[in-house]
C-alpha cells in the first residue's frame, strides 16, 4: 500500500510546479499525426520540456527500447473513432469505444500509468462502457501500482449543457476511481466547482482553437496539477516545442 502511494505521488505530483503532458496516442484512430509522421525521429525532439507523453501501445513499444529521461510514458488503454470528423476518409457513422490493452500489458510495456477516455453525450451504452472500464482499470491499477488517468470528452451530440457535462464527467471519473482527471475548460464558475469537488489531481486540456494561454493561467490559479495537450495542438499556431516552452515558463511562475 505504501509503495503504491509513493508511486502515485511520483507522478505528476512529486513535481513542485504544474506539469505539461502531451497526448500523441491519437494516431490509433487518425493515423500519422502532423509532425509525427516519422515517429522515432520526431519524438526525441518533442520530449525536452515535457513531463509526460501519452503513447499508443505501439509507440510505447518503440520508445521502450530508447532512453527517455525525465519524461514519464503513459499508455492509451482504449480506442475510439470519435476523434474522426466528417472529412476523415472513414467518417464515423456510429461512435465506437473499445478497450485495447490489458493492465498487465501496460506493466509489460513499462508504462508509468494508464490513460482512458470517459465519453459523454453519445449512446448511453458508451457512457456505461467507459465507466465500467474506468472502475476495472482503477481497481487493477491499484494491484499493479499503475495510476489511471481519465480524459473526460464531452463531444457527443447529446450534450445539452457543456459546462455541466464537464462537471459530470469529472465527478463520474472520480467516483469510478480515477487517480488523475483531464478536463476541458467549462468556464470559470464550473472550473471552480470542479476544483472544489476533486480530491484527486486534475489537469486542464486547453482548447487549441484559442491563441493564448489564459485558460492555463486560470487553471493554475485554481490548483490544476498541469496542462494536457491533445493531438490538435500538433498542428496549430505554434510549433509544439515553443508551446511547451511557454507553458513551462507559465508553470514555473506558478510554483
Amino acid at each position: 500500500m505504501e509503495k503504491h502511494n509513493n508511486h502515485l505521488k511520483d507522478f505528476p505530483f512529486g513535481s513542485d510546479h504544474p506539469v505539461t503532458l502531451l497526448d500523441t496516442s491519437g494516431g490509433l484512430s487518425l493515423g500519422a499525426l502532423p509532425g509525427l509522421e516519422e515517429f522515432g525521429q520526431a519524438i526525441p525532439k518533442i520530449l525536452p520540456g515535457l513531463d509526460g507523453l501519452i503513447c499508443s501501445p505501439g509507440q510505447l513499444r518503440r520508445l521502450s527500447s530508447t532512453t527517455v529521461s525525465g519524461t514519464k510514458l503513459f499508455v492509451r488503454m482504449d480506442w475510439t473513432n470519435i476523434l474522426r470528423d466528417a472529412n476523415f476518409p472513414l467518417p464515423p457513422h456510429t461512435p465506437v469505444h473499445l478497450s485495447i490493452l490489458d493492465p498487465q500489458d501496460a506493466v509489460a510495456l513499462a508504462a508509468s500509468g494508464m490513460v482512458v477516455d470517459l465519453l459523454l453525450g453519445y449512446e448511453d451504452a458508451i457512457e456505461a462502457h467507459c465507466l465500467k472500464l474506468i472502475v476495472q482499470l482503477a481497481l487493477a491499477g491499484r494491484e499493479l501500482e499503475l495510476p489511471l488517468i481519465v480524459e473526460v470528452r464531452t463531444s457527443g451530440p447529446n450534450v445539452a449543457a457543456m459546462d455541466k457535462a464537464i462537471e459530470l464527467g469529472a465527478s463520474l471519473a472520480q467516483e469510478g476511481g480515477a487517480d488523475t482527471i483531464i478536463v476541458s475548460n467549462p468556464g470559470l464558475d464550473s472550473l471552480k466547482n470542479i476544483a472544489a469537488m476533486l480530491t484527486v489531481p486534475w489537469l486542464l486540456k486547453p482548447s487549441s482553437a484559442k491563441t493564448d494561454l489564459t485558460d492555463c493561467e486560470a487553471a493554475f490559479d485554481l490548483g490544476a496539477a498541469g496542462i494536457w495537450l491533445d493531438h490538435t495542438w500538433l498542428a496549430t499556431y505554434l510549433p509544439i516545442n515553443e508551446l511547451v516552452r511557454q507553458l513551462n515558463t507559465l508553470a514555473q511562475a506558478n510554483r
Partner: protein
Amino acid sequence: MNTSVSMRMDRLFNRRHDKRAVCIAADHGYMSNVTANVINLPFIAQAVTRGGADGILLSPGRAHHLSGLFEGPRAPALIVRADWMNMPRLGIADHSNGVPPQHLSHQKMLSARQALALGATAITIYLFLGTDDKIEATGIESCAQFVSECHRVGLPCIAEPLAFGEQVTPANLVHLLILGARMSVELGADALKIPYTGDVESFSRLVKIADVPVLVLGGARSENEQDTLELLADGLEAGCAGCLMGRRVTQSPDPERLVHQLAEIAHPGCSGDDLKPKEQ
C-alpha cells in the same frame, strides 16, 4: 448463512447490539449530476461519521479515496455500490443536466471480490421493476450473480428494488415494491434498501414478506427534517432494521446533527460507549 456473511451482517446491523443500523448513502456523484453534496462529499462523510452513522455507501472510487474513514474499531462500515445506473439524470430538462440520457442504463461495475478488496462490509445493487422486460431481466441476472459471488467471498449483498418506468402507476407502486423485495430475497439478497411504501401497514407487510433486515431509503431531500425523522420512526414501527438514506442527509445544512438524531431514534438509549466491543 455462511459465517463470513453472518459476521459482516453483524458488523453492519449489530454495531450497537440492537440489530439496527443508521446508514448513509453517499454515492450520488456516481450517478447524479454534480450538486453541492457531491462537491463537498469528503466533509459530509466526515460529518456523518461524527454523527454516528453505522455504515456509509460509496462508489468504488470514493471508497478508495476515503478509506481512512473506515479504519478503527468505532468506524462505520463501508458499503460499496457495485453496480451503476443513470436513472437520476433521466427526464431532467433544465441546465443542470449536462448529458441527458436517452434510456435507462443499468450494469454491473465490479465483482464482489473487488468490493471486498476495497474493504467493503457489504455491497448494494439495484433491481429495477417497471421499465421493461429487458431491464428487469438484466437486474435479475445481475442480482443472482452478485449474490453467488458475495456468498463465495463472505460478503452480504443488499438489494435495492426500485419501481421505475412506464409500467409503474400509483395504483401498483406498493405492490411492485413488495414484489421487488420478495424477488430479491428469493434470489438470495441478505438485506434490502427500499423506498417507504407510504404507510406503516403496507411497509410492515413488505418487511414481513422480505424476512431479511430492511433499510428504508430516504429519496429526495425534504425541506422539513422532521419528515426525515418521522420516516425512520414509521419504518421502525413497521419492523425495519433502520435506514440507508442519502440526499435527505447529505443535503442537510447539518448532516452530523441529523445523523445523530436518526441514531437516537434507531438506537434509543444508546451512546457512543455502545460501540465498544461486546464482552465475550
